[in-house]
């Protein structure tokens, strides 16, 4: 029988393949006819495992053992929760993977972990984020490194700062950044009908800039941001009217997931740090080797917004994906204050987890876990 990690990985591959397909074709997700075989197989594996678990339980709590993976839609819904909460499938879980959902329940896109696991399974090559990235890099390759790096930063900043823009703004960017304009134009898509409110207009969130979802509550229409952090924002969400949906464009879902939402904290920290003239900071320097860094490669900062410190520490135990940070003398992992405040000893736990899981000591690899406030204090911003 397959191990939990193998099952999780096959589910991740299925999720990524299905999402890719639905983004590409726009066709409704159906069990028969257009379900990728990877997803079907993942469901079948989970279903057979559920049967064994049910047999082991000797028929107790039958209602908890409903074979949800027989339904594609139920499976996807289940993947919005971490595996430890999947009913009837897994009972004793030691793997860290058990605490990650595969699908972001707000954005309804695969989580980073799904892509990572698909990558491990060798299925990462053509996911959409990578597709945009590689197109962008192909365009930049034609340029000198200095110009290319600046353009890369400009393009990424353009997307992160404005996931929803008027079509005219996108056209202007395309016009003034000819080399990479085409890629950016392709990254922006028309607005889906569900975001159009009764007055025929679309609105965006004052916090993240993404589109707000109109919902009918009692007799009035209200607007909800799909990003949880915005909903829990102290000041609350303020809807900003963008205009006629036919004149508005929104950035591709995968870029929203991997660039825009993580990028909000990155931009916030970068802008605050930049107020200090003591050091010249760059955003996504040298083609994104770190989130924020100085030109002398003295300090590199990666911004991470993990809810669980254990997961953050575990992800830094292996450095293969963090090579960019290794190029800096001081390697800082910056965590937004809101996370640190809500979790006692967040930074300490993350560091302990990293040390505990580290299989070997790599020379020069010594990341420091700091909160935003600590970073700002350290660099006097």
């Amino acid at each position, binding site marked *: *029988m397959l191990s939990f990690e193998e099952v999780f990985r096959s589910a991740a591959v299925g999720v990524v393949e299905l999402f890719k397909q639905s983004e590409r074709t726009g066709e*409704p997700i159906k069990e028969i006819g257009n379900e990728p075989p990877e997803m079907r197989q993942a469901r079948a594996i*989970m*279903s057979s495992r559920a049967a*064994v678990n049910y*047999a082991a339980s000797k028929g107790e709590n039958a209602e908890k053992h*409903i074979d949800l993976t*027989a339904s594609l839609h139920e499976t996807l819904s289940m993947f919005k929760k971490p595996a430890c909460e999947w009913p009837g499938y897994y009972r004793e879980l030691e793997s860290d993977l058990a605490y990650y959902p595969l699908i972001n329940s707000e954005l*309804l896109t695969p989580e980073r972990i799904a892509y990572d696991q698909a990558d491990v399974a060798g299925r990462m090559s053509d996911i959409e984020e990578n597709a945009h990235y590689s197109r962008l890099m192909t365009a930049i390759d034609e340029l000198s490194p200095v110009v290319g790096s600046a353009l890369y930063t400009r393009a990424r900043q353009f997307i992160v700062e404005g996931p929803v823009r008027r079509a005219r703004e996108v056209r202007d960017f395309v016009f003034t950044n000819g080399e990479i304009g085409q890629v950016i134009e392709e990254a922006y898509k028309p607005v889906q009908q569900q975001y159009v409110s009764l007055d025929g207009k679309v609105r965006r969130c004052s916090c993240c800039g993404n589109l707000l979802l109109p919902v009918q509550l009692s007799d009035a229409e209200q607007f909800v941001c799909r990003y949880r952090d915005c909903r829990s924002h102290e000041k609350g969400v303020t809807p900003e009217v963008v205009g006629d949906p036919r004149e508005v464009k929104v950035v591709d879902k995968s870029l929203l997931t991997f660039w825009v939402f993580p990028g909000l904290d990155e931009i916030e920290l970068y802008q605050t740090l930049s107020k200090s003239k003591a050091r010249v900071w760059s955003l996504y320097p040298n083609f994104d080797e770190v989130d924020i860094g100085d030109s002398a490669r003295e300090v590199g900062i990666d911004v991470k917004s993990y809810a669980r410190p254990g997961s953050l520490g575990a992800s830094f135990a292996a450095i293969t994906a963090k090579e960019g940070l290794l190029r800096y003398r001081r390697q800082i992992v910056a965590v937004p204050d809101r996370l640190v405040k809500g979790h006692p000893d967040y930074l300490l736990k993350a560091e302990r987890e990293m040390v505990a899981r580290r299989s070997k000591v790599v020379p020069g690899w010594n990341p420091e876990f700091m909160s935003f406030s600590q970073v700002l204090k350290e660099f006097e911003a």
Partner: protein
Amino acid sequence: MRSRNIVLKKYEDLDVVCVVAREIIGLGDLNKLPELTSGLRSVDSVVSEEAAVAIRHLRLMGYKVNSVGQIKAMVESTKNADELLFNVHKETLIVSARSGTSVQVEEIRNAVLELPQRRSTEVRYADPSKPFWIPMKHNSTHRIELQGISEPFVQATHPELPRPAEGPITISTRDLLDAAREMDRMDIEGGHQPEKWMARLVKDAGLTPVICFKDHEFKDVSEITIDGLCNVLGLPGTGKTTLINLLVYLLKKRGYRTATFTTSVAVADQLRRMQSRYGVKSELMFGSSNSAKERHAANFGDFIAAENGDAGFGHTNESAILFATGCMLEGHVMADRYDQLPENNPPCRSISQGGKNAVRSKLTCPMIGICGRHESSRRLAAADAWFGHMSILEVKVPETMVAEKMTYAELVAQQMDVVFIDEADAAQKALDAKGSERIKLYGKDAEKYQKLVNEIGSKSSAGKINWKAAAEKRAHDAATGILRHLSVLDLFFRKLEERGCDRRFKKLVHDSILNTSTIMGSLYSCLEKQTSISKDRFYELGTELESGLRTVYFFDANKDRARVENRLHELCTAYSGTATNDLANAHVNSIANIFSDALELPDEDSVNRQLVTDHVAVLCHVISCLLHVETVLRALAFIGVKPDDNTIKSDLFTKDMLPFVAESVAGRLSGLRVEIERHEADRTITGVNIEYQSYVATPRLLPARLTRLSGSERGPHVVMLSATSYLPESKTYHLRRRPDYILSRVQAGESSQYKFSFASTTYRGSPVHVSGAGADREVNLRMIIREVFGDANKTFEFYKLKEGGVDRKIAIVVNSYDQVNMVLDEIQRCSPSLRKRAIGIVSSYKDTQKRESGYRTAQEASLLGRDHFDWDAIVFPAAAFGRGVNVVYPEGHELHGKALIGTMFFPIRPHPSAEDMTFLQGVVAVMSEEADQPISSVVDLETFIEKRRKLRHVAKSRISEILEMGGSPLKLGAAQDASSFAANILVELNQVMGRAIRGGVNANIVFLDAAWAPLTASGGFDTAESSILLRMAMIIEQHVAGTDPLTAHIIDNLYGNILAAIRSTKTIRTEKPKENEFE
């Protein structure tokens, strides 16, 4: 699915039939038996109670006595005739008893009168502790070994429950109000979107919404009594759905179980989810076949995607698990064999165990008791309320669910207390379609049949030696035999066209259903003046030939059958075994000579002898084909393949259901229909299409039969609800039972008004017709669209109807999805900017038809209001949206609940295609329904039988007449038929136009096809004979001004606004009809 009593199994079928006919009914011969065993309840009025019971049981046990042919075949096939209890004359079918058999006769008599038991089910599960094999693609198998599972998960069967409630159920208005109040409270407590039941009941329907009609007057009633069959007619906007919801909830509270049937599984699921909210254990009934699962899973995917505005990634609802298609065994298939799994064909009941080379036995999957694919059927057992589509009734209940073999109809009849049939008139239409079957055998659209033949062929050639393989071989041989005969017929029709033939013969070939009766009828009409031979003799000759071919076909060809004239028999034998067409033709010529001689045609009368030869040739091939078709269908049923949309089209009720409804009054009429395609320009033949048609039963009787399905066991009360089920002229939609209750608006405000306009287009001075334009239909449709939307000054805004400052949308209603594309394409040509503001309805998204390219699926109809900013015009086929689906402004909008569509264009008049059998099915069903009614006056058995025979001839003639008319009202000779046809269209039109007046608003309706008022379009004056709109007006007027107050009340409320619109339009020129013109 009841088995024969063990006593009866000892005796020959013929003996059992003779005991019923002679000893119980009192018939001297078996010729008359089919008139009594057709399942009509009127028979109960003329035979003894005991005889009625015996007849019902004969049908339930599947004795084949539905026609004289079947009885003769039974006589022919009975072995050891000398040992029978009765002597039956092979020709006259006169029955005489042998002496000394009284004990056995009494034994049979007692056994026949006992209600036959259902066959018990036996489920054999595969042993999960040992390896087993599942079928894979390409006839291969795969070994599966389950780990950690030692016992099969046995599915719990339906509990034995007491019979449905006895006695009437009464529900007062007070009860309904209390239920509404409770449900509203639950909405608040549960934090649900409030459904406002109380407001709907009081405000929309009026506090006392129910009236009934008794003793020739209307009475407000404060309660509804459900007792047996009950017909509730809900006038538009009076809250039928509200009533169903309240009743289901209320009856559950009283401890009753209910089943509700709707027009689609999607609507049933909506009701189910609604009831679940109020604590009613509600589940869905739908077929568990692979094709049904696939269809419903696809529809569910579309619905979830539409509801959430994207592809549906990450979305679900509580119904998802019911439509699940996963298989628990698939996870055990080795990764490298995974792609060999047959798609959507899990081995739920096709597992083999006992070694790879062991005899293959079909074992049930040991996981079936917990597998998600079967979750829906598992949940049904414990549910208080079942919801589904009528088509589920004929489906067999999986053997894992019940201890006896039965259909859902029997399960519902056994376990439910009350059955609701929503949109009962639409349900009646759907049931009518199950009374006949059609299979495209040859030519256009016959690929599926050919594919089936090949598939069966490939299976039968696999070298297996078992019953299934033998049945497959029989089916394949017969299926290829059909093709051989049809290719000869194809050639024959082409040659006939070249050399010319008698116009009456030509008419037969083109317009009639071809069988022995119609072919010999045609021959008689051709030769009537040249011969003194009676019409009966013509039929006798044809029957003789049919009988000869049937005998040779079914039995040993070399065996001497004295009954058939020797020479004819020899020729039939030779003909049947003929390998080449030339030889077959030679035999046909020989048979034709026998016919000509028998008809006393002189040798030198070559013209008429040729006519006989032509008829005989067609007759030989047609009979042979029909025999082959019967074999194919029988063999397929034996194998377990039900021809459906995926193979060949056949809607006929399954053989398990036929005993519960009556035979068609026309008897078992089957034949071939020929359609000859011609080149548009030179009219040469381009193709010959041949279809098998068969009229068998009267399924529309099922709702009434459910109350006492097997005749003796008590069944549920059945409540039929509908809005448009009352229009006596409509053979398709009118319910025979008069309404017991009418839901009517007590506080009626001003009703919605239509404004009709007729605006035809002319081309080179001639009016443009779409309906009836034949090959020019598409060109003409495009021309009309261009005329209306090609003017740059007239955008969609020009045609929009304003309501409270809001421009409501426009709709273009067509007849098919193909026409949706034609219209959108033409709008694109007229103006790309207009096309951007138009959407078309498709059955499902395809490569070129996607949401972003301006399409929506029919499943999204109820969600169209949500994206109303995205479009101005919608193009849809009239039948695309299910009944009860409202296209209205969404909550929060100032026009919330009012119709989105304000202006409706009809560029084509609804017109049944040549393939549409609805009208014909309705006519036959009404005749059968009439024949089913109990007889109040005293009639002796002989007279009754004679009347039934005459009625059968009349019914057959009517079928031929209607087929000859081709279904067009312009061709319909009798005013009665034209009115029936117009009434059907009126009901459908009312349903479609009703979408534009939802919420009490007005609507503009524009008729663009010249066919709506052809004489006006040509500058003349229309009458009810020429214009279907005027005929509709005439029908409505006659009823409103009639003497029956109930009819006048209903028709006025249902169609009064249509009448007013037709009469007030100035765009149709009329002249006063002459007195008594339509009587």
